[in-house]
């Protein structure tokens, strides 16, 4: 590699100025992750407020107009400013290490992507400070609800600007990830030796590149409608509000996979390490990711079944087809664990939690892909339960797996296992208590996005249980925060490879130097660090010495991929 490090040698503690001016992919990754969790904290507090409002019939805390703003900003923050950017944070921090690169292809552009995302989120939230309040048209911003007639305030404009900024940020980031993966891989790291996480970053970047322009165009059209008398979505001027839905969901459904696929990559990294086996069916996993991404571009209108303006059999078939590659992935993770030397560390527990939570969400998704069921469940709490099942199950559970897994690499410190297990247990229980009653509510016909409901319709008890579950989730987050706080008070003491892992990021120190690698192991398989560990082990045995040191971890069975 001909990269030359001109960076300033890192001092023991990083100053605020360094964080503000950094172009180091690892620091930018940490900034993404921290900011995403910051937005999640705000979105989570809003969620608690929503659940408290719905705990019993009658208006308790907020009026209907405020409630509309709360669920709009909650959805926008959680989807566009937490789940997506958290994945981008992991991609920033880990992907260049996994391919043996010194940094991203365009480090300054990478920093710009981060700042656009951060300012975008702050702009969306600043709507609460305006006289009319924040946007209140739902995270989907459906026209004509988002038009100047029904959403006249500045809050809706701020939402448009904020979402547009995160869209631009996403496209810039996607280009950067793709060029990095295409042009910066270490010698020997050909495409089918790339770790699964890197594959998912590549495929996700492709989706972002081709799906995000659709929402950017839709936002521009909405802005023109609101301020310059355009009539794109106004039937009285020859426009069509369903056009918004087409444009939004042509971005919005791939967005679901943009949110999920990198987290699938995280699971594919964690499960083999703690199963002591290579990933089962690596090539099928790669093809499954590509298949999911490809199919996701052709399913957008399953969100529009009840408009009566879309071809039901086509979109139903395409939606059902996605279950096949997704099923392959679930099967392969279980097959990787099968007869493995399982270690139930906290990252592994989150993966196991994901398998059950995400699969419930996936199965309810298959139900909703059937138009007759979708017509009954449209805009009910069944859909709310489903989307939280897939999104929390898919992104948050895997996100926590990734945090516990890579925290030692990024900080040189390990999160407390005991606190991590309490965190995991409270989330698994809290999740079920929160969202299973919402399936019941949906089946009983409770509409989503209502601030109040009449007593005596059988909705009272499930709502109360769901609120208790949401409180368990909030309490369950505290052990995680405590674990992070305690870890950061300790000095960095973790070795390069504390888990006995496989991919290149574990070949460098924890945390890595600014230029990432002082030396790279030869890359002749999917698991170069494993190969090197085995070679060192064989050499030690040949010399008649004892077992490997603390960084080697358990010897894994099976081939090298």
């Amino acid at each position: 590699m001909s990269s030359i490090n001109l960076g300033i040698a890192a001092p023991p503690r990083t100053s605020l100025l360094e964080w503000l001016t950094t172009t180091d992919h690892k620091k930018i990754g940490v900034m993404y992750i921290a900011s995403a969790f910051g937005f999640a904290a705000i979105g989570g507090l809003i969620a608690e407020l929503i659940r408290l409002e719905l705990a019993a019939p009658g208006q308790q805390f907020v009026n209907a107009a405020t409630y509309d703003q709360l669920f709009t900003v909650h959805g926008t923050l959680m989807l566009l400013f937490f789940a997506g950017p958290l994945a981008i944070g992991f991609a920033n921090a880990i992907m260049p290490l996994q391919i043996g690169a010194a940094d991203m292809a365009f480090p300054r552009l990478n920093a710009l992507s981060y700042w656009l995302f951060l300012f975008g989120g702050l702009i969306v939230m600043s709507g609460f400070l305006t006289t009319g309040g924040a946007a209140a048209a739902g995270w989907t911003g459906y026209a004509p609800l988002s038009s100047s007639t029904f959403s006249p305030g500045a809050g809706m404009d701020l939402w448009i600007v904020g979402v547009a900024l995160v869209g631009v940020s996403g496209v810039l980031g996607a280009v950067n990830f793709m060029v990095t993966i295409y042009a910066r891989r270490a010698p020997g790291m050909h495409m089918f030796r790339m770790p699964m996480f890197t594959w998912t970053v590549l495929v996700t970047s492709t989706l972002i590149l081709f799906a995000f322009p659709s929402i950017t165009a839709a936002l521009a059209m909405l802005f023109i409608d609101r301020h310059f008398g355009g009539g794109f979505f106004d039937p009285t001027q020859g426009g069509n509000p369903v056009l918004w839905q087409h444009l939004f969901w042509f971005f919005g459904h791939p967005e679901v996979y943009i949110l999920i696929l990198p987290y699938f990559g995280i699971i594919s990294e964690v499960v083999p390490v703690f199963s002591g086996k290579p990933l089962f069916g690596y090539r099928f996993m790669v093809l499954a990711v590509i298949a999911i991404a490809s199919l996701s571009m052709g399913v957008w209108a399953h969100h529009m079944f009840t408009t009566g303006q879309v071809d039901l059999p086509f979109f139903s078939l395409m939606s059902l087809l996605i279950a096949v590659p997704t099923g392959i992935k679930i099967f392969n993770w279980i097959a990787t664990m099968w007869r493995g030397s399982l270690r139930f560390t906290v990252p592994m527990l989150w993966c196991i939690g994901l398998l059950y939570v995400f699969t419930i969400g996936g199965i309810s998704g298959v139900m909703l892909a059937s138009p007759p069921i979708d017509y009954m469940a449209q805009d009910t709490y069944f859909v709310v339960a489903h989307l939280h099942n897939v999104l929390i199950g898919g992104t948050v559970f895997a996100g926590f797996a990734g945090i516990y897994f890579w925290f030692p690499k990024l900080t040189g410190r390990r999160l407390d296992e005991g606190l991590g297990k309490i965190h995991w247990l409270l989330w698994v229980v809290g999740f079920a208590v929160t969202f299973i009653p919402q399936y019941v509510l949906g089946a009983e016909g409770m509409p989503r996005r209502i601030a109040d409901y009449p007593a005596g319709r059988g909705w009272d008890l499930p709502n109360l249980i769901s609120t208790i579950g949401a409180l368990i989730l909030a309490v369950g987050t505290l052990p995680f925060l405590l674990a992070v706080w305690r870890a950061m008070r300790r000095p960095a003491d973790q070795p390069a490879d504390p888990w006995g892992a496989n991919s290149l990021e574990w070949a460098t120190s924890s945390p890595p130097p600014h230029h990432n690698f002082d030396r790279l192991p030869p890359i002749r398989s999917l698991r170069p660090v494993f190969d090197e560990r085995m070679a060192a082990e064989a050499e030690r045995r040949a010399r008649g010495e004892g077992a490997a040191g603390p960084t080697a971890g358990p010897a894994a069975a099976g081939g090298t991929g």
Partner: protein
Amino acid sequence: MEEITYFGRLSFFAFLVGAGYWLVSNEAVGTVMLIGFGLATGAGFTLLRGGARHEPDAVGDAESTEPDGPFGDESGPLPTRSAAPLALGLGVALIGMAGAFGPWFVLAGAVPLVLGAADWLRSANRELALREHLDEAE
């Protein structure tokens, strides 16, 4: 050359689905979006194929000194710390807020935008000159 065929396959898939969708639905918006996806990925395929510089047999060689893949090493010096991305991002965000609060925000945003862009270009030029100097020295 998986890097290149990846785009080609995506393009083929998009055209296939787009054509199928048009046949079963006669719906214009979705067809345009799917065919647009096919054209965009097809353009990516064409551009990448034109940009490839390495032969396929160079791929996967752990003893090589060049990055893997068909596009060669274009990596330069790692950039030093820079306030340009922050300034540029702030400028764009302030200009964006003009959409909600009026044109005065364009003026407020123009200052950090111009400063950030100028600093960015200066730094990039400096690194380019350094790279050329190093290339000559080699």
